[in-house]
C-alpha cells in the first residue's frame, strides 16, 4: 500500500479518443503507454518516478483487462532484465526507475540489452533526480546512453510533448532495434496540465500468448562471436536507422525564425526555462513565439549531424543549453562543426555554469551574457544598460536556518538511533555506515550517526574492510528496502561468507518508506497481487547468520539499548544482525487515523495517546531534543522573567509514539514528560472510577493549598 493512492486518478486512464486528460505528468506517461499497446510494464520506485510505480500498481485492474503484465521488480537491474522479453518477441515493454542511481544498478542488464538489440519496442522511463529537491549525487544518466549505444529522449516538459515522446520512443526503438530511454526531470514528473487522449490499445501479442510459441535466436546472445557483431551492428545499422527515423519523423523541433544571426540548441527539458528567459528579455511571447531560432533536442542521443549542421548554417554563434556535466552535447556539436569547417562560434559552458541546475536565474544570466556578446542589438535597452538600482534588501542568509529533511513525527526509526546514541555514550563512538533510505537521516543532527552511504543495500558491505573486528565493532545500517533490493546477497551474504565480526542493523518499517511506502517482500500488509509477509529473519538465517536479534517494537528504547549493548560486547565473533521492526508512522497514521475517527464517532471506546511536557519542571536544557528531533517536540518561550531559555513543548501533531518518554527514561533525562491517554467513549465504570479518584485527589489538593501560600498556579 503506497503513501499516495491513485485509485481515483486511475479512472482517467480509461479516457478514449478525443477526450481531454487533466493531471500530472506521470499519469500522462501511463496513459501514453496504454495508448501505445504496451505488453508489459514494471520498474523500481524512487523519486521522482515513485508515483509512476504507484499509478501502475493502482491501475492493475485496467492493465489486466488490456492483457498488460505489471511487475513490481525487485530492483532496477531486475526491471531492465525484464525488457529481455522484447529481444525476441514483438512485444512493447516499458520499465521505470530513477536516474542516475537506478541506471547504475541497471547498467549490467542495460548493457546486455543494448548489445542484443530488441524486436519489440523497449522503453525505459527515467526520472532524472538532478537539481533542487534531489536526494542523490549529482550526475547525468546521459553517459550510459553513450557507452551502451541506446537512445535518449528528453522531451519538452508539457503533457502533450511527453505523451508524444512515449509513442515516438517505442517507434524509434523498433525502427532501430535499440532500447530507448525517456528522461523526465524532477518537475516534469509532477507537472500538471492537459492533453487530448486516444483509445487504449491492447497489445497485439500478449506476454501470456507469447509463451505458447517460444522464440529464440542465438545471434542475439551476448557471447563471442556475436558480441563483436553486435558492436558493428550498433554502429553500422542501428545508429543510422535511428538518425534517419529521428530526422524523418522530426522528433527534434525548430522554433523561431528560419534565419537569424544566432541560435540556441537546447535539451527538450530545458525548453520552458529557455522560453521563460526569452519572455523576460522581451524576445518571446506568452505562447512561446520566439525571435531567436531554437533547435530543441527532444532526442539528446544520438545527435543528428545533418540537422545540427543545417541549424548552424549561416549563424554567427550558437548557444548550447545543456544541464549538468560534462557537456557531452556541446562537445559533439563542436566536433561536428570543426570537422565540417564551419566557422560558427559555439558557446555554452563558458556563459552557463558547468555544474548545477539551470534555474531561471542561471539561464537568465547565461543567455543574457550570450546575447550581449553575440547579438546585443536583440537585447532590450533595460538589459543593455540598466538605469535603476535594485533596492537593498537585508541579507537573511545568516538568519534563516537550514531545514534538511528528517524523521517524521512518530517515526519508528527515531528510537533506534536514540538508543544507539545512548549506547555510544556508554561504550564510546563506533565506526558506523549508513545506507539509502529514511534511516540515512540519522547522519544529520541531532543524531549524527553514520558517516557514509555507498549505495542501496550496500550499508554492511561498505563496512566490510572492518569486518575482522578490533577494539570496537563496526556497525552498519540498512533498511528493509535496501535489504531486499540488493542487501541480502551483497551485504548480509558477504558478512556471513567473510565471517564478519561486525553488527548490521536492519531497519524494518514494513515498506520501502523513503520512496513513498511501496510494499516489499517483508511488508506486513496483505497485498492482493504480491506475496508479502516473508520475514527478514528467515532470509538472514537462510543465508547463514546465526546471531539474530529481533525487536518488534522499536519504541522500547531500553530494550533497543540492551540489544545494541549485547551485539557490541558479546564474545560471539561472527556476523551479528539486529532486525528492528515497527511500522512507518506516516503510513500507519494514514491508515488508522480515519478508522479511529470513525470508531470514536460510532461511540466505540478508543484510547488515543499523546505526550506532554510539564513546563515548570522542564529546565530548558533541550537534552530530549538532542535525542529526538521529532517535529512535534519543539520549544516554547515562557512568560516568566526568571527563565532565560525556552522550554520543551509538544504540539497537537504528536501521535503518541512514546519516544519522548522512553528516551527521557532510558537516558535518565528528566521527569518533565507525561503521557496523556485520552479515553474516548469510556465505559460507565471507568467514568465512576475516574470521578471518584478525581474527587479524592481534588480534596487532597485543596487541603494542601489551604495550608500554604499559593500563587495562582504560576509556579
Amino acid at each position: 500500500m503506497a503513501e499516495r493512492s491513485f485509485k481515483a486518478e486511475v479512472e482517467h486512464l480509461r479516457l478514449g479518443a478525443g477526450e481531454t486528460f487533466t493531471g500530472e505528468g506521470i499519469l500522462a506517461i501511463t496513459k501514453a503507454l496504454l495508448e501505445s499497446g504496451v505488453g508489459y510494464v514494471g520498474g523500481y520506485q524512487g523519486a521522482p518516478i515513485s508515483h509512476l510505480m504507484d499509478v501502475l500498481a493502482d491501475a492493475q485492474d485496467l492493465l489486466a483487462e488490456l492483457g498488460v503484465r505489471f511487475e513490481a521488480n525487485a530492483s532496477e537491474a531486475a526491471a531492465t532484465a525484464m525488457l529481455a522479453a522484447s529481444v525476441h518477441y514483438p512485444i512493447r515493454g516499458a520499465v521505470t526507475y530513477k536516474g542516475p542511481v537506478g541506471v547504475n544498478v541497471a547498467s549490467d542488464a542495460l548493457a546486455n540489452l543494448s548489445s542484443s538489440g530488441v524486436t519489440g519496442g523497449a522503453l525505459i522511463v527515467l526520472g532524472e533526480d538532478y537539481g533542487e529537491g534531489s536526494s542523490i549525487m549529482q550526475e547525468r544518466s546521459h553517459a550510459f546512453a553513450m557507452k551502451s549505444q541506446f537512445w535518449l529522449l528528453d522531451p519538452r516538459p508539457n503533457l502533450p510533448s511527453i505523451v508524444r515522446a512515449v509513442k515516438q520512443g517505442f517507434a524509434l526503438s523498433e525502427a532501430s532495434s535499440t532500447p530507448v530511454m525517456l528522461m523526465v526531470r524532477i518537475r516534469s514528473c509532477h507537472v500538471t496540465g492537459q492533453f487530448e487522449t486516444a483509445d487504449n490499445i491492447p497489445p497485439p501479442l500478449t506476454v501470456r500468448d507469447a509463451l505458447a510459441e517460444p522464440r529464440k535466436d542465438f545471434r542475439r546472445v551476448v557471447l563471442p562471436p556475436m558480441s563483436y557483431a553486435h558492436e558493428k551492428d550498433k554502429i553500422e545499422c542501428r545508429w543510422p536507422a535511428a538518425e534517419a527515423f529521428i530526422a524523418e519523423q522530426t522528433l527534434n523541433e525548430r522554433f523561431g525564425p528560419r534565419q537569424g544571426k544566432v541560435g540556441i540548441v537546447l535539451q527538450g527539458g530545458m525548453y520552458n526555462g529557455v522560453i521563460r528567459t526569452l519572455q523576460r528579455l522581451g524576445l518571446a511571447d506568452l505562447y512561446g513565439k520566439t525571435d531567436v531560432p531554437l533547435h530543441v533536442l527532444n532526442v539528446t542521443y544520438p545527435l543528428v549531424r545533418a540537422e545540427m549542421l543545417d541549424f548552424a548554417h549561416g549563424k554567427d554563434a550558437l548557444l548550447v543549453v545543456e544541464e549538468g556535466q560534462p557537456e557531452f552535447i556541446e562537445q559533439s556539436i563542436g566536433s561536428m562543426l570543426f570537422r565540417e569547417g564551419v566557422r560558427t562560434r559555439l558557446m555554452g559552458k563558458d556563459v552557463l555554469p558547468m555544474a548545477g541546475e539551470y534555474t531561471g536565474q542561471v539561464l537568465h544570466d547565461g543567455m543574457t551574457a550570450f546575447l550581449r556578446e553575440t547579438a546585443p542589438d536583440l537585447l532590450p535597452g533595460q538589459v543593455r544598460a540598466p538605469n535603476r538600482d535594485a533596492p537593498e534588501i537585508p541579507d537573511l542568509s545568516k538568519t534563516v536556518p537550514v531545514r534538511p529533511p528528517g524523521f517524521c513525527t512518530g517515526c519508528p526509526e527515531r528510537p533506534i538511533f536514540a538508543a544507539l546514541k545512548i549506547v555510544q555514550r556508554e561504550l564510546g563512538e563506533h565506526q558506523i555506515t549508513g545506507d539509502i533510505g529514511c534511516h540515512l537521516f540519522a547522519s544529520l543532527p541531532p543524531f549524527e550517526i553514520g558517516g557514509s552511504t555507498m549505495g542501496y543495500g550496500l550499508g554492511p558491505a561498505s563496512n566490510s574492510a572492518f569486518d575482522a573486528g578490533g577494539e570496537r565493532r563496526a556497525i552498519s545500517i540498512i533498511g528493509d528496502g535496501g535489504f531486499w533490493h540488493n542487501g541480502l546477497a551483497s551485504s548480509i551474504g558477504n558478512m556471513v561468507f567473510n565471517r564478519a565480526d561486525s553488527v548490521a542493523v536492519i531497519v524494518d518499517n514494513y515498506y520501502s518508506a523513503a520512496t513513498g511506502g511501496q510494499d516489499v517482500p517483508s511488508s506486513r500488509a496483505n497485498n492482493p497481487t504480491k506475496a508479502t509477509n516473508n520475514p527478514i529473519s528467515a532470509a538472514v538465517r537462510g543465508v547463514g547468520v546465526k546471531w539474530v536479534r529481533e525487536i518488534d517494537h522499536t519504541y522500547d528504547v531500553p530494550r533497543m539499548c540492551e540489544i545494541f549493548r549485547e551485539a557490541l560486547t558479546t564474545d560471539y565473533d561472527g556476523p551479528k544482525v539486529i532486525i528492528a521492526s515497527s511500522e512507518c508512522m506516516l503510513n500507519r497514521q494514514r491508515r488508522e487515523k480515519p478508522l479511529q475517527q470513525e470508531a470514536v464517532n460510532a461511540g466505540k471506546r478508543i484510547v488515543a495517546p499523546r505526550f506532554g511536557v510539564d513546563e515548570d519542571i522542564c529546565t530548558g536544557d533541550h537534552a530530549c531534543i538532542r535525542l529526538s528531533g521529532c517535529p512535534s517536540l519543539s520549544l516554547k518561550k515562557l512568560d516568566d522573567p526568571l527563565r532565560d531559555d525556552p522550554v520543551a513543548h509538544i504540539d497537537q501533531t504528536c501521535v503518541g509514539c512514546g519516544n519522548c518518554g522512553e528516551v527521557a527514561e532510558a537516558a535518565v533525562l528528566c521527569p518533565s514528560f507525561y503521557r496523556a491517554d485520552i479515553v474516548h467513549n469510556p465505559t460507565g465504570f471507568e467514568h465512576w472510577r475516574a470521578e471518584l479518584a478525581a474527587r479524592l485527589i481534588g480534596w487532597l489538593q485543596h487541603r494542601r493549598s489551604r495550608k500554604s501560600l499559593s500563587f495562582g498556579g504560576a509556579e
Partner: protein
Amino acid sequence: MTVQQPLPAETDKPGPDGVIKLAIMAVGGQGGGVLTRWIEALARTQGYACQATSVAGVAQRTGATIYYVEMARTGTTQPVFALAPSSGDVDILIAAEMMEAGRAIARGFVTPDRTTLIASSHRKLAISEKSVPGDGTADATEVRAAAEIAAARFICFDMEKLAVESGSVISATLFGALAASECLPFDKGAFEDAIRSGKRGVKASLLAFDAGFHACRKGVQLTGVPERSPSSSGATGPARLLDRWASLTRRVAELPEPARPIAMAGLRKVVDFMDADYGEEYLDRLAPFAVADCLGGDELTKAAAKYIANAMAYDDVIRVADLKTRASRNGRIAAEIGTGPQQILHLTEYMHPRAEEIVGMLPAGMGTRIAASPRAMARIDRWFAKGRRLRSDRLGPFLLLYALGGLKGYRRRTRRHAVEQAHLDNWLSRAASVAASDPALATEILCCGRLIKGYSDTHARGLSKFDMVLGMVDRFADRPDAASCTRRLREAALLDEGGEALSDAIRTIERA
C-alpha cells in the same frame, strides 16, 4: 497582523506578461500539496490555463519544500509556463512559516516591484534551533523587517493558530488569506468551490478558510502574550501566612524600582518552593548585591534576583512531586490536550530516580556518608534505579507523589539541600567579592547560573561547564575585560552539549 499596501493597484493585476506566478514555500507535512491542488482547480474552473509543479520524495520529509503555480487566461494556444520560480519574477509568494518567508526573501523570490508576500507569522523551529542547550531560536523580527522592504505588499499573521482552532491545517487558512488579498482575479465563492471539489475534510477546511479570510480582511490584532503585572502578589493562603507574605513584599519594595518585578517573581518562586522563611533567606542573600549596586545600574540586582531564586528553587524530587500533584496542573493539561467532559484522561509520569536522587533525600549526615561510598551507591542504584511509570490520575500513585511533595518541611535537613546551599554560598561569595570593584563582572558571575539546569547527566554537565567558566574567571578576574570574557565563555557554553565551543573560547581567551 501586518497588511502593508503601498502598491495595491499594480499587484491586483496579473504580471506584466499576462502570467500570474505563485510560489508556495512550506515545510514538509504542512499541506503545501493540497493548497497547490486547490489553486489549480480554482484557476481552471475560472477559465485559466494553469500549470503546477512540486518536488515529491524524500526531500519532503519535514524539510523545506517549494510548490510553484503559473496561470494565464486561456487563449487558442497553450501558454508556455516555467517549472520553477525565478528570483525577481514572482507575483505572489505564500510562506507557511516565518523562516520560510525569510528563505523566500533570501532567494530573491520577494521583490518590491511586484511580490505580494502572504506569510504565517508562526514558527516551526528547525532542528538546529531546537537542539542548542541555550536559546538558538532564529530572529523572526529580522525576517519581518526584511519583508517590509522586500514585498510590495506584506500580509502576515498567525495562520497556524487559526487553522488549529478551526480543527484544520494551515493550507486552508493560507488559501483564505490568498482569497482576501484579492491577488487572484477570482471571487470568494470560487475559492470555496475549489475546496469543495476536494474530497476530504471539506467542512473543517472551509471553516479554516473563512477564519483566514476574515482575519486578513479585518486585520486581527497580533495576539501577543498579555502583559502580566509581576508586582501584584496574588497570593492566597491562611491569614497568618498572608501577613508574612505582606512583610516580605514590603522588603521587595525597598529594592531599586527596576529590580522589583524580577525580585517579586523570584520571591514567589522560592516561597512556593519551600516557605516564607525561605523567602526571608532569599531577600537576605539578595540584599548585599542591591547595596553594592546602588552606585551603578540595576543589572547586578536584577541578575542576583533572578539567579539566586533559580538556584534556591533547585529541581529535587520533592519539587517535581509537588508540581506534578497540583490542581492547576490538571487544568493546564486538559486545556493543552483538549479533552472534553465526555472523555477521561489517563496520565502516566516517566520517572527514573537514580541513587543520587535517593541519597539526596536522606538526612545530610547519612547522605554524605553513603554518597562517599561507590559500593553503597551502586547497591542503591541496583535496588531502586530504573524507569518508573506512575499513573498519577490514580489514587495510589498520586498519594505517593503527594506524600513526596509534602516533604517541604523536611527538605532543609536533606543532603541535597546542604549541597545546594554550599554551592550557592560559594558562588555568591565569589560574586560578592568583586561586586564593589567590578559590578559588571559580579553580574556576569551571577548570570553563569544559567548554565546549571536539567537533571542527572545534563545537570552534571551543566555544573562542570559552570565550574570551568568560574575557574577561568579566577584566572582573569583582574583583567579589565573580565566581564566580557566571562560573558563570552558563558555564551559559548550554551552553544553545544559537549562543550566544544566552550573549550575553543577558553583557548582563545588564554591566548589573548
